């Protein structure tokens, strides 16, 4: 995983609450057996006027120009600004894969659904929960935003907001550490636990 660095970008504002993972990446795209290539189908049903299927040439599809991601100024946005309970619904990890493949490395919202929140960290996306009023302020702000994970801050020319992040997750993101390799450093402890666990519960 690549190391997470300080990011300065404008934010694409998606002004909807309870955006679910079905909306982030519709189920027909879950049929891929690979991890990449989901970006052009991010928010597919909102982004295009026709019905998307895997294998289509997305560059030839009619765009819904009312949808925020299709607006010129947000094409290079690395930050997605959203409303409460972002990422609810299905556990599909294709949702963070699609967001990342599109170029979003940070999502700022008042709250996130649990599974989605976890999946973000595992894929090098930083989900940031700010208060409702702070998120409102960002929705009303159109300039560049700087996100500094090291100092846990979101800054604009108008102000700066602190956010919380679990220290271990922060360390892993900053260092680009692979979860499985880190866990396997504890292989002896897992083996010892396993032995006792099966002795106590021989039917397992």
């Amino acid at each position, binding site marked *: 995983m690549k190391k997470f660095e300080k990011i300065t970008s404008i934010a694409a504002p998606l002004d909807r609450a309870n955006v679910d993972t*079905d909306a982030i990446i519709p189920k027909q795209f879950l049929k891929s057996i690979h991890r990449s290539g989901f970006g052009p189908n991010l928010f597919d049903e909102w982004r295009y006027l026709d019905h998307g299927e895997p294998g289509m040439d997305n560059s030839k599809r009619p765009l819904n120009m009312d949808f925020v991601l299709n607006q010129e100024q947000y094409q290079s946005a690395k930050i997605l600004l959203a409303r409460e*309970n972002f990422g609810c619904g299905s556990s599909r990890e294709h949702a963070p894969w699609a967001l990342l493949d599109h170029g979003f490395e940070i999502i700022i919202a008042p709250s996130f659904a649990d599974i989605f929140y976890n999946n973000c960290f595992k894929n090098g996306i930083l989900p940031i929960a700010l208060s409702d009023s702070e998120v409102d302020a960002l929705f009303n702000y159109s300039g560049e935003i700087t996100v500094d994970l090291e100092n846990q801050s979101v800054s604009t020319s108008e102000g700066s907001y602190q956010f919380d992040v679990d220290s271990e997750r922060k360390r892993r993101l900053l260092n680009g550490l692979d979860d499985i390799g880190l866990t396997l450093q504890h292989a002896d*402890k897992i083996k010892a636990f396993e032995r006792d666990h099966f002795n106590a519960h021989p*039917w397992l």
Partner: protein
Amino acid sequence: MGLTLYDKLMESHTVLVDDGTSLIYIDRQLIHEVTSPQAFEGLKMANREPWRLSASLAVPDHNVPTTDRSGGVDSIVDPISKIQVETLDKNCDEFGINEIKMNDIRQGVVHVVGPEQGATLPGMTVVCGDSHTSTHGALGTLSFGIGTSEVEHVLATGCLWQKKSKNLKIEINGELNPFVTAKDIVLYVIGQIGTAGGTGFAIEFAGSTIENLSIEGRMTICNMAIEAGARVGIVAVDDKTIDYVKSKPMAPKGDDLMKAIDYWKTLHSDDDAKFDKVVSIAASDIKPQVTWGTSPEMVVSIDGNIPDPKTVSDKVKATSYSNALKYINLEANTPINSVKVDKIFIGSCTNSRIEDMRAAASVLKGKKIAPNIKLALAVPGSGLVKQQAESEGLDKVFTDAGFEWREPGCSMCLAMNADKLEPGERCASTSNRNFEGRQGQGSFTHLVSPSVAAATAIAGHFSNP
């Protein structure tokens, strides 16, 4: 101070704790074809082997056709669906993972198959790359959905890093009204606490109403804990649980069973356990439920009206309501039982077990579906549920009424296979999600119980059984 059942299961599976996050040991990993290919790809790329092969049980379910599939994997018309099922077969063969293949009589929706096979036993930690893994908590397990990276992590290490959730007890007491089922209970609960009401919590469902439910009913309730935002739904073990699991193929036998039963009997929250939050609900307040919008919390009683966003004071909620009504093409203040439907779906990991089939069949017996119903599907949750239903003659009841009686799978719950709605079609569905486009782009889903789905099929509009 006493412990909750969730606390006990977390504690008894904790290998180590690092900075407030626990590494917990996973007893059972269920695998299906949609969220596993990239996990196997990751293992191969890193040259890693599965930690413990016997932990895993795989079954294809999301993409399988529910029509004739005697031709095996070649019966799958959609080439991409076919690749996913083939990839699962190939990965399981290559790594030596126990898989129930598509044409095995035991195949079905992973959350129906696990308990049915005894792959899920009380006290276990159970994970699967599917958010409805909360279902298995009905057997007193700690079960939750995980993402594909975590599927790979569990495959490679046998463990998972978890932050402890808070404890929420939802206590439901009293006698249920006629035709009110587990599905109505859980839809009502979600309507009360909202789709984020359980976020950050493990929900224990308790109270006399839950105790009086069958194990299958408890599964329906735990299944939808995730629709209230909680990854974990759980019910204490009682005699019903033990009776249910002890005869299952993978359940322990002989002495081991005796030892297991002694342990299983300890799987309940202590009397003095502290919950971070308690919600109490009177069973008598619950009527059959129908969702009207695009989120499971947008739900009314069958005799109720669709709410008016103008009367909702919370601005964000009012906008959600307006968006939902616009999408689902219904007017505020309409009585829900006047809304006509086009299709009926009885199935999914929420409601496709034998009791669900019996409940629907008892309403349908001797009746016909209404002329405006274009298609009514009954999709049993597994080959074994199908076989049992057929031995009771239920398939005849469904087909005589005008239903199609299909092969097991996830089917129209999420429309990854050929079973989907056309744009503008409205469906009474026993599944778990009514999100925009869930059952087909531009289609409208209304979540109901099997009894209400059957009554709606006969009436042509939402109807009480």
